[in-house]
């Protein structure tokens, strides 16, 4: 029985292919036009991310019958939300560009025409947002050749996939499209000329620095630098700044009932707000500094300094 169904399905497939052949030839011409157009758009764009508007969406996606000869991976952007850091749009877009640029750089053959990186901005293309049923940002979605319904959630990149930034985005793309993105090329932190200048500066300054160190004239030999450093670290720690960094605590809260009312102190000993921590840390530090000022700057010279031991061999000298 199983063998029977298999045969039958193969037969159907064969006939379907026979009938479809002429149509697909006509299509393929149109397809190659589209691909050529996408390639030209891509080469014009920064790091190969094509900016799509509503027309572009209908031209490259909705009006092309499936299977399309290419996949599109679309980043939904909103310029007016760039200022809000909690959406991480700027950061994610930069990572997206890195993936795109790496994909183009790593692939030369036919693969490079099978996947295009695009972005759609909400200010100019609200209709497309609606068409893709984008409700929240960040939103990245892969439109594979067979996808008819653009609201289909299967192509959507899950939050976990862009958490790890470019690497996990590339992994997502590879998993879904079976194309290889290859190693990620991050732009180096500093350009080559900058590196050259810095190395030159370091090389020049090394002898000077060594001389200074040997003479004992550097900033490091200034007690005041160390003193203020030590006091600063103390302030930093007792203010609970590390807690604020790890928990990503805001500096202050707004009252739920009355938004004009700003809350600086939080009523729980396990938690603190940024300003609160700094205020108390400042208090901790300043009291001690006042005491130090009173005892050191105002007053008598104190001799409670222990020095004057000399070097001697194994046993303490009093034992001889």
């Amino acid at each position: 029985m199983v063998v029977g169904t298999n045969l039958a399905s193969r037969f159907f497939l064969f006939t379907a292919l026979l009938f479809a052949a002429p149509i697909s030839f006509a299509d393929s011409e149109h397809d190659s036009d589209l691909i050529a157009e996408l390639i030209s758009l891509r080469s014009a764009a920064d790091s190969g991310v094509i900016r799509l508007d509503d027309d572009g969406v209908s031209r490259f996606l909705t009006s092309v019958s499936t299977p399309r000869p290419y996949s599109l991976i679309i980043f939904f952007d909103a310029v007016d939300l760039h200022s809000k850091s909690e959406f991480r749009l700027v950061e994610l877009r930069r990572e997206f560009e890195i993936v795109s640029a790496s994909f183009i750089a790593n692939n030369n053959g036919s693969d490079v025409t099978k996947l295009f990186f695009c972005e759609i901005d909400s200010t100019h293309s609200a209709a497309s947002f609606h068409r893709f049923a984008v409700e929240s940002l960040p939103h990245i979605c892969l439109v594979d050749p067979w996808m008819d319904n653009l609201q289909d959630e299967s192509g959507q990149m899950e939050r976990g996939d862009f958490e790890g930034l470019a690497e996990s985005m590339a992994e997502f793309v590879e998993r879904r499209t079976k194309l290889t993105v290859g190693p990620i090329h991050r732009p180096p932190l500093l350009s080559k000329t900058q590196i050259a200048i810095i190395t030159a500066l370091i090389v020049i300054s090394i002898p000077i620095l060594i001389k200074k160190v040997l003479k004992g004239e550097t900033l490091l030999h200034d007690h005041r630098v160390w003193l203020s450093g030590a006091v600063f670290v103390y302030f930093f720690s007792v203010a609970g700044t590390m807690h604020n960094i790890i928990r990503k605590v805001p500096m202050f809260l707004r009252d739920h009932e009355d938004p004009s009312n700003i809350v600086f102190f939080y009523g729980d000993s396990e938690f603190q707000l940024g300003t609160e921590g700094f205020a108390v840390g400042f208090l901790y530090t300043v009291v001690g500094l006042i005491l130090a000022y009173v005892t050191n700057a105002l007053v008598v010279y104190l001799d409670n300094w222990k020095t004057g031991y000399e070097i001697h061999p194994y046993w303490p000298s009093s034992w001889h």
Partner: protein
Amino acid sequence: MAALESPPPGTPSAMRHAFGSVLSALILLLIGVLAFSIRLFSVIKYESVIHEFDPYFNYRVTQFLSKNGIYEFWNWFDDRTWYPLGRVIGGTVYPGLTLTAGTIWWVLNSLNIPLSVETVCVFTAPVFSAFASWATYLLTKEVKGSGAGLAAAALLAMVICSIGIRLIFLLVNIMAMTLIGYWMSCTLFSIGVSFSGIFHKCLLIGFQNVSFLSKWLSLQVPSYISRSVAGSYDNEAVAIFALIFTFYLYIKTLNTGSLFYATLNAIAYFYMVCSWGGYTFIINLIPMHVLLCIVTGRYSPRLYIAYAPLVVLGTLLAALVPVVGFNAVLTSEHFASFLVFIIIHVIALVYYIKGILSPKMFKVAVTLVVSIGLVVCFIVVAVLVALVASSPTKGWSGRSLSLLDPTYASKYIPIIASVSEHQPPTWPSYFMDINVLAFLVPAGIVACFSPLSDASSFVVLYIVMSVYFSGVMVRLMLVLAPAACIMSGIALSQAFDVFTASIKYHLSGSSNSKDDAEDKTSTNNASKDDGSAGKTDKGEESAKERSSRKGKKKEREPADKPSVKSKIVKKKALVLPFEASIVALLLLIMLGAFYVIHCVWAAAEAYSAPSIVLTSQSRDGLHVFDDFRESYAWLSHNTDVDDKVASWWDYGYQTTAMANRTVIVDNNTWNNTHIATVGTAMSSPEKAAWEIFNSLDVKYVLVVFGGLIGYPSDDINKFLWMVRIGGGVFPHIKEADYLRDGQYRIDSEATPTMLNCLMYKLSYYRFVETDGKGFDRVRRTEIGKKNFKLTHFDEVFTSHHWMVRIYKLKPQKNRIRGRAKKLKLKTSSSKSAKKNPWI
């Protein structure tokens, strides 16, 4: 404190010296008694029991050690835990604490003092905290020598003594009261004397007041108390003593340049390595200090002697401890010390060449040597980087990484992030744990900079490092505590010195200057200079004492002294107004008094609860909740000796130690997968959980439930961590399934996954029968699902206050013949007898 060698007898100064040494020895003794007794609140209030969780493991190990001897202990493979894996105890435990307590027990027994192992364990921590306070005294003495401020030490310490001692059992009480009486009279005598003008001099004689103060502070600082109350039989109890003592010996070596102390230092370091994983703090802090000294041009042969033997001997000794082994040379935590070891040799070579060459030749040589040294350093760094980069975690353990990058643990290792003592502290934690010391530390830092010596720079480095690390992990507040004490001791002592000197000046000045025709200002300056000169004399005197102790020394001293004297001449010292100094003195005393009150309160209330026995005060009197021991006793009496008990890992140590039953996971969280398995079982529905537990041969499941009496640290409150840790290994457990709109709740709004998971069911089974509504007093809500039956578990025991509930896994059901046959036909080939159920 050793008796000071005094000048020729008969002179008044000799009398003062004798008086000084007797008084210091007495104060030291009292401080030891105080340090011991302030930690006995838990024994008085509860009983002589071991606290918390980890101490139970240490107790069990000590029992084993005392019963079977050291060789058996070294080779001990424990099959009672981490079933079915087991655990090699000898090779995975820091043996310092166990060996210490075992030795104490053995010595006492051979002296025919028959104390039980448990008693020894309970009192090890208080005894060692007395040692720790003496070590702090020594360390501070090395750093900042003598100073003023005995009055403060006396006034403040007296308060705490009388408060603390009232609660101690009779014998100590009588003894200490006698001593205090004597001490009080001494103090009163000295105070009385002070107003006749000798006060200041008296204060300066021989007393190492700075150190007394810091010691007095350290013996009662709450954050240290928290880990060293009687019964808290944990590694930190002896480790803090070892830490301070190692630092003391390092400073001592640095000051004396004696190889003898360097050797002792390595041995103290070895003891520290034996005791606590926190030894990496030492082996990173000391190299940092050495590097700092080199960079700021403070290299001296003494520095070399203090450092090089420590690295060589210390590393060799550390490698002898099985739990450290080759980690002492292979992991990144130790690399800093080797790098600095190389650097110090390069520098030593430079100095040596500088010594044998003429200045001109040296200039030529220096370029050569430095460049060669740099090349060598670069090569070594490159090799290290290559080595380190080849290991997956870059050679750092998770805990260390979370110190360097504080966000590391919260991102990647839930099992580290889940422990409450690994959370970052907020400012109230600082107030709770170091209290007024937090205000005094900056003054201490400033005092250490005027002037900066090798020793004081070390203490500054110590406080800076420890305060930073304590900011990352609240647990490391423990390392911060001694540093904060030393700093505050220095600050307080300096402040007292200044204020008492001002008062003394005004008192003596007013009596003298009236009949003096001399210019007021000149008197001012003269007597001031006099005062300071007197002080310098005193300083010199005390330095001489030290030097006379050390032998010939005066000849070398002038090298330092002229600069000191010239400084005094340069400094036209002002004296604070009389009223201002009185007020400031009173303020400081009040600050100290507040500290005493806070510390006694913290020791009595906050840190003395054993957490195995709980109490609560209500209108109708004191309630004692002894459910844990009740349940462990039930387990040991009613179950078979080879039965396996599953619970969340918090209760593993207690179950093995008190019930003597095999557990699946315990507080030594070495196998994340195993813990995740238990977490997954607790988060799964009943049937799946039963399969997981059955595959692990578990007979009983133990849950801790606080809903009836309002005990907040129960399993329901820890449950999200079980889900997270379980989900980290088995992805079908998703945290979101247990949360309604991101909120963790157990009422009728809870998700079905939550209401059906094993933890919910075992906790709330029959709970509605207690009050008819099922009101949870921890979560302050009615539970979501009230009437349900268990299909795969039987309730076998619920403790008096419902805090511990024990369930037995139901035996596998007999299969119905017909159904079984059908099933067999259908799935004949696919099913294996016992497949791994959670994959």
